[in-house]
């Protein structure tokens, strides 16, 4: 089978100090069923692997030299196009309301970020959204959110160091894995 890839070179954006994340997600949203993405970047875009992984893409990264990387994102079986995946976290941020609370927990040592987020969720109303910045994936937090019936979406920011989690109070169905 011949593979079809859309090409996206974000190196100029990165070199001028810009953020290519939005551009990448736009391109992914426009992919035809079965089409993959060929991405060129000035570093190995590790955070994208899990973001696009949750949208049903496998990745194959290759170093081109001078620090440049080529990554082929292929739609895997069961996800013929990015649009067909709806249950994955962070897939449809647009229908969530703007966060009413923001927490920056990046400088806190574990498990303080988890404690603060759970404390905040107890004070919020149904349907409200909390946004928190962390320095790691909050993997012990997620089962706790699920048990309390909250929805969540999360992923690393393009800098690869900051993890942003959005928590929506009391709307767990379809949002958690």
């Amino acid at each position, binding site marked *: 089978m011949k593979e079809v890839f859309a090409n996206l070179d974000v190196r100029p954006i990165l070199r001028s100090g810009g953020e290519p994340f939005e551009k990448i997600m736009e391109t992914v949203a426009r992919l035809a069923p079965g089409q993959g993405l060929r991405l060129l970047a000035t570093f190995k875009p*590790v955070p994208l*692997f*899990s973001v696009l*992984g*949750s949208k049903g893409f496998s990745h194959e990264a290759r170093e081109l030299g001078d620090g440049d990387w080529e990554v082929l994102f292929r739609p895997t079986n069961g996800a013929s196009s990015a649009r067909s995946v709806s249950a994955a*976290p962070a897939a449809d941020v647009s229908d969530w309301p703007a966060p009413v609370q923001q927490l920056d927990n990046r*400088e806190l*040592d*574990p*498990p*303080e970020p*988890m*404690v603060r*987020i*759970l*404390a*905040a*969720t*107890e004070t919020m109303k149904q349907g409200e959204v909390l946004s928190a910045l962390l*320095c*790691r*994936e909050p*993997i*012990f*937090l*997620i*089962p*706790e*959110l*699920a*048990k309390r019936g909250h929805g969540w979406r*999360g*992923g690393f920011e393009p800098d690869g*160091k900051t993890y942003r989690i959005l928590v929506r109070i009391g709307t767990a169905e379809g949002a958690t*894995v």
Partner: protein
Amino acid sequence: MIGVSLSRWTMSYFAAALLALVAAEVMMAIGYGFPSAALRAPETLILVHMVAIGWLSLLMCGALFQFVPVLVARPLHSNTLPLPTLLLLLAGFAALILGFLQLAGDVDPSPPCFVLAGALLGLGFALVLWNLARTLWAASTRPLPARFVVVGLIGVAATAALGIIFALVFGGATSYGPFVLLMEKGLPLHVIAGLGGWLTFTAIGVSYRLLAMFMLAPELDRTSTKAALRLGAAALGVAVLGGTAAVLLGVDVEFVLLAAGILGLASLALYGADVLHLYRTRKRRNIELNSRMAIPALASLAASVVLTVVLLAFGRLPEHVGAVVFLMAFGWLSGLGLAQLYKIVAFLTWLECYGPVLGKMQTPRVQDLVVEARALKWFRLYFLAVWSGTILLVVGYAPAFQALAALMLVATGGIVTELVRTRRLADVKAVAQLQAGIRKPRLLFSLSHQT
């Protein structure tokens, strides 16, 4: 991206492991095994396996069942398997000890204990590998620490394979030529695969992540870290595969081991540089006891490398190999293990107890479950005793070594008491302890909220 729950049987692994550590220290204190007995005497073999399987391997398995899911953000492949796995490992371990006692002539030689040990331990470690490998395999990304663990798991497979061959030959179940040859010349390969490949490599991988996490240092994805992984893996490949080939072909193993040693040295040097980088770039100025007590453990690793090189240079390594192994096992691996246990037990207990009510009521912090000042003196005594013990082994004064082993036993007893107190919430203020909705944790397993 899925959450991780508590591994129910991790505490049972830790408890069994700590019992074995205490047993090993009692043996050393009463003069059972090396240095009172010869390096290859059955008594020494019992002592060595009490430490390597009973203490360190069970500790590592219990920790990995909890930790590998954290590393790759995937749930453990099977939460049912760890208990039968533990029972198999314990039964196999008991059979192995009996086998060595048969070798020493202390018990009736007729039951095929070695064959039984080979089968039970082989099956136990196979289940460990299966569960962890499936978990790692299912992950979408495997960060560098997870790749160290992968190499460590290959290490345990190699160690177990060689160990089973030895057990079969010892037990008289086979006299297949190559197996007998391996039994005669392959002991260093078994030790390197176990101590270097399985235990040290896995500990290195785990330490990268734990040190970064608890000191708020950036996760390392540096060229040096990747190079440490590749060089270390190459060193182990050369030592174990090359060494086995050399034994079977009748070639001198020493040159192969020397080549592997140079690669391993480079790998450890890069790891040392990475660890210094982690401590320097940390955001937390005041670090907790587990990160502070990792320092003497890391120093012990560095010291055992230096000691090896110095002894090798003077051609004295063969007669002092016991001292090097002692420092590796008790200063580096046990020291790091005890230091991290101190934090892991507190954290898992805290999560088990207070996780369900976080945000809903006032809860203690993780640090409220422990009293670091009290534990610190036991850790100091422990490292002091291990280092003095190493020096005594090098100069060869066995009676004083026994006294220091007794001190190690006292220090370990102190640390174990602290762990039990943590698990029992003994140091948490009464108010926080008795609030409604809080479950008192069991000593030996977690009432994990698995759904």
